[in-house]
């Protein structure tokens, strides 16, 4: 998480970044923050239950505020007044999600107001994908293997455009009665331990060549 946050700050015109994980669909926990300011922004939102990052999680959409001073007062009245003294121009909050799977939220802030260019936005979204893989991997022991291959596998972003991966996730949810984030993590663990790719495993599940019970650990 440390590396991902710092990569964000280095590669993007932002001054700070933080990553929080969502647990059991509701509880949020800040895993890493690059500086005091973004840490304060995070903890304020926890306490108040409002703010852009909070909204990003709840509404399942990015909440991008290029100029906080002109954000409507009615949207986060307490939050905006509480951060008044902090040097924050813009906040960009990206939910880290795969469909119904809530993994966490990536928050970026910059002192100056302004919008990210298309290239910067592209980078930000790739950081989101990276964080998604890493956070899902954090739940699995395969990530802690000795030669470091596990970490590399988990940091490879899951292809979002493969419908079958998402369908297979749903099949495991129904078959094993587990939450979607676990289903997704098991797919990836299985790919890792059998040295295959998630797409192929998903394809086998969807076409009923692999029984879901194989994933019941």
């Amino acid at each position, binding site marked *: 998480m440390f590396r991902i946050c710092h990569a964000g700050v280095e590669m993007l015109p932002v001054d700070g970044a933080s990553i929080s994980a969502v647990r059991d669909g509701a509880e949020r926990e800040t895993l890493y923050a690059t500086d005091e300011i973004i840490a304060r922004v995070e903890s304020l939102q926890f306490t108040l239950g409002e703010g852009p990052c909070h909204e990003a999680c709840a509404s399942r959409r990015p909440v991008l505020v290029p100029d906080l001073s002109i954000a409507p007062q009615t949207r986060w009245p307490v939050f905006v007044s509480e951060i008044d003294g902090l040097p924050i121009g813009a906040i960009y909050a990206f939910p880290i999600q795969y469909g119904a799977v809530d993994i966490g939220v990536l928050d970026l802030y910059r002192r100056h107001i302004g919008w990210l260019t298309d290239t910067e936005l592209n980078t930000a979204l790739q950081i989101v994908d990276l964080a998604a893989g890493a956070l899902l991997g954090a739940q699995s022991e395969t990530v802690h293997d000795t030669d470091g291959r596990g970490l590399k596998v988990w940091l490879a972003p899951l292809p979002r455009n493969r419908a079958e991966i998402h369908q297979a996730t749903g*099949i495991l949810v129904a078959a094993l009665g587990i939450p979607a984030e676990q289903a997704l993590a098991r797919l990836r663990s299985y790919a890792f331990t059998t040295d295959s790719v998630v797409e192929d495993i998903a394809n086998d599940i969807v076409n009923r060549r692999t029984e*879901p019970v194989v994933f019941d650990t």
Partner: protein
Amino acid sequence: MTDPSLRDTARETRLLQSFVHIADTLVDDYDVDDVLHELTEVCVDVLDTTAVGLMLADQRGGLQTLAASSEKARLLELFQIAANEGPCLECFRSGDPVLVDNIAEYTSRWPQFAPTALKRDFHSAHSIPLRLRGKTIGSLNLFGQRPGSPGEQDLKVARALADTATIGILHERTIHRNEALTEQLQTALNSRISIEQAKGVLAHASGLDMDQAFQRLRQYARRTNNPLSRVANQLTEGILRPDQILGPQASRRS
């Protein structure tokens, strides 16, 4: 043999009905995922085409399928995204329509896409950009089982449907701000994933195939007047049970 002019009239009536229906939907508080699927189905219905897919910029430099008239169209499109080549991608990158009347002639240009399309019995591919003020946000892709060009009339219709899709996706009617564009594109892409997950849940619980599972999900969303993506999320999160969507008899005895 049907009289061609009669056939044209029937087609025009159907087209008009479809536009009126979609326009009506867009005025109300509508469900974007449902409208887009309907739009791909309208394309199959009124244009001389077999399978239709709608793809959206993922803002990571690629395209993702948002809606498709069938699983078959989706497989093909996914393949070309994976292969990083093909008419949809070229249409998206150039912002101009890419009309491929005979895929068999393009095997050297798209060495992976063309053979796969032919193997799946698709012989023509026509991609129309989804455009918003000079920016291309995706493409509408029509795959046909016979070689041939769409004709001027059909091309106009396809463009109108592509514009309708753009309006449908960017439902804040005046998107001047880049951040709003990103918020909506990313939301639409995530909804897509939610729906695929929910199809998996429903397919397993019922023994239905993915296309059938989607139809059941959609019927339930319409019947209860809920957005498709919300129903999908609730099903995957266990807030809704499969039998609530399928009805008591339909669940699979496992």
